[in-house]
């Protein structure tokens, strides 16, 4: 799993590549949580994440809670249909704003 950071129009775009599970989620969390500063704007680019385990979903929710607790904004972009479905069925999707791609995600967050 790899994480790349990129700032576009004051939005921090975090691109995750690889599976998010119990072995990778803690590392992702460690890297992403410090970015959840008051008023932050974050787009999580997920189109290179083929699989998320329950640990991966938990990490996402934790990030969401941190960001919304500090008046920040976060969007998820590029989720595969399968991941979206898993998140819907387990209720995780209800928390997030999701967009099909980075462009549409950035358009709302700016």
């Amino acid at each position, binding site marked *: 799993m790899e994480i790349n950071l990129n700032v576009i129009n004051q939005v921090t775009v975090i691109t995750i590549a690889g599976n998010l599970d119990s072995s990778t989620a803690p590392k992702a969390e460690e890297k992403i949580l410090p970015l959840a500063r008051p008023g932050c704007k974050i787009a999580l680019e997920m189109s290179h994440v083929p699989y998320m*385990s*329950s640990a991966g979903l938990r990490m996402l929710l934790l990030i969401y809670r941190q960001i919304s607790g500090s008046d920040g904004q976060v969007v998820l972009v590029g989720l595969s249909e399968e991941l979206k479905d898993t998140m819907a*069925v*387990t209720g995780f999707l209800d928390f997030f704003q999701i967009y099909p791609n980075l462009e549409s995600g950035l358009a709302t967050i700016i």
Partner: protein
Amino acid sequence: MNRIDTYPTHSYKNFKLHSGRPYPFGATLVPGGVNFSVFSSHATSCKLVLFEKGQPEPMAEIPFPEEFCIGHVFTMIVFNLDYENIEYGFRMEGPFNPKEGHRFDSSKILLDPYAKAMGGREVWGIPPNWEAIYPYRARLVYDDFDWELDQLVAIPAEDLIIYEMHVRGFTQHPSSGVKHAGTYAGIREKIPYLKELGINCVELMPIFEFDEFENDRVNPKTGESLLNYWGYSTVNFFAPKAGYAATGKFGMQIDEFKNLVKELHKNGIRVILDVVFNHTAEGNAQGHTFCFRGIDNKTYYMLTPEGHYFNFSGCGNTLNCNNPVVRNMVLDCLRYWVAEYHIDGFRFDLASILGRDTKGTPLANPPLLETLAFEPVLAKCELIAEAWDAGGLYQVGSFPAYGRWGEWNGKYRDCVRKFLRGDDGQVGEMVQRVQGSPDLYPQRGTTASINFITCHDGFTLADLFSYHEKHNRANGENNQDGTNDNFSANYGCEGPTNAPNITALRHRQIKNAIAILMVSQGAPMILMGDEVGRTQGGNNNAYCQDNELNWLDWSLLKTNADIFRFFKYCIAFRKAHPVLRSRTHFRGQDYMGSGTADITWHGLKPWSTDWANGSHTMAFMLCGKHAKGGTVKDNSIYVAFNMHRENLTFNLPQPPKDNRWHVLVNTGVNPPEDIWEPGHEPLLPNQSNLWIGSRAVVILVAK
């Protein structure tokens, strides 16, 4: 701050260990590792067996160091385990001496009785590998969940309308149109349907892990292997069935099920689980050893002095529920489902077994039932007993209730069925049944009585009026299984017919049944699919049929639209009228000064009931001023039953002053005029005489 004991003190091969904590039992994630804890009072040693997820052979076996054991508990912490990618079990050494009650077998790898999730049967219906050395595989879970503001839904028992359903059967039929057929997620998609019907409580048939493949019978006609479709055979008491989850293959059944509960709650629907504590899936002495038998047979099972299994469950063994250790397991389990899953209540299968002592003798004051009644975490839960067992104990009306327990009222079911069929001598008992059975529960109020006419056991409502006898050959037991006491009738043709008069009568009887159920005091329960006339082809014990016999066919919603509409309006009527939902029994007195008693009895003539043995008529009036013990105002309601084969004229009692009778239900009339939308009931043209067709129910409301 970190704890000062979260560092390894021992090692075994590559594993770092520390002494563990005995409570809680099971596997608990602790900083840096996992705390394992398992009880056995007779094992001489125990090993923790670790697998990589899904792998057939273990990756390690770690003996619990003797110095880590506390009392009869084997416990240790193992550090640096990847909790999502391992499965664990136990291997126990101990005596094999069945006469003494011991059946240890160290060749077996045993499932943790406190496992919170289970692998091995993640996807429903995929044939298992029978050679697997560890078939039911304990997994570790991170059991946090974001419930947001979810609370247990507060609905008083008398206001409940319970819908008994099977998770898979509800949406597995292709006609359901849901994305994930046969799953928790499927139910979630159908919540709007449940709301439209008007129910406010679902009772889920077993969702604890069971093995659908434990049945070795075949359908004699098709040769198809039969399953244990219902699941009244628990493999593990703490884990939700993964095979019912769309995400079971990813190990996310816990989140999916919790999300279903959360969504049901959001929609005002309570969730009751049907729980099976009377026996386990290990069966009798010939059954598989996968958990309790290999951990501590003598503790977990009721044994005869010779070491044989008592069989009060009819399923080969009997869980030793009043042994203090087993009692604690049951308590831990129920607390866990309430605290972690926000479950609102439990229906206990063959609950009378829970009142037997360790030798099988019924107890006057069973510790387990008493403890459950007073357990703080369960204080707002419904506790519902199936108040009998397969050992001959029948406790409807006498179940040790501690003012807390409700019962499946089997006498209500039988009496209403007989009355509907036109049996002689039922009027006197019907008077009790429609009042919430004060004869059975004089001290306990109406909520002791869960009223039902059909449940998963026995005929569906449509079959009750279509079959004279059971047709269970497909179950592979030569039609010997299932009850013969159905109190059913076919009205001239066994099974399906094209004769319009028979079909009309069957529909009318279905409507009569739901109408009687909805005007009876006590908590009503409906069987999934009865609202659309679901048939099981006369099979009254369809526990093994994973096919269209059991799956709800959603096209019936169109075919039997009149039945669905009738159910919907009947339920809405009950919810609109508190006079139908008293918590206390009627007194038969006018204590509100309204001029009539809370309940008054009538017949063909007002104020006069025909009590004769050959009578098939009765009527009663509920006084609106006495609703809920006189605490709320409601309309007065008049109900008349004519189960005679002839049409009869009923003279009506006067409605309260300035009121006139309006018609909600008259099942003797063709739909759509057999029922009216509650609140829009038309005026009854003749206020003094009402001609009621044969086998029909009339409900009038005064306004």
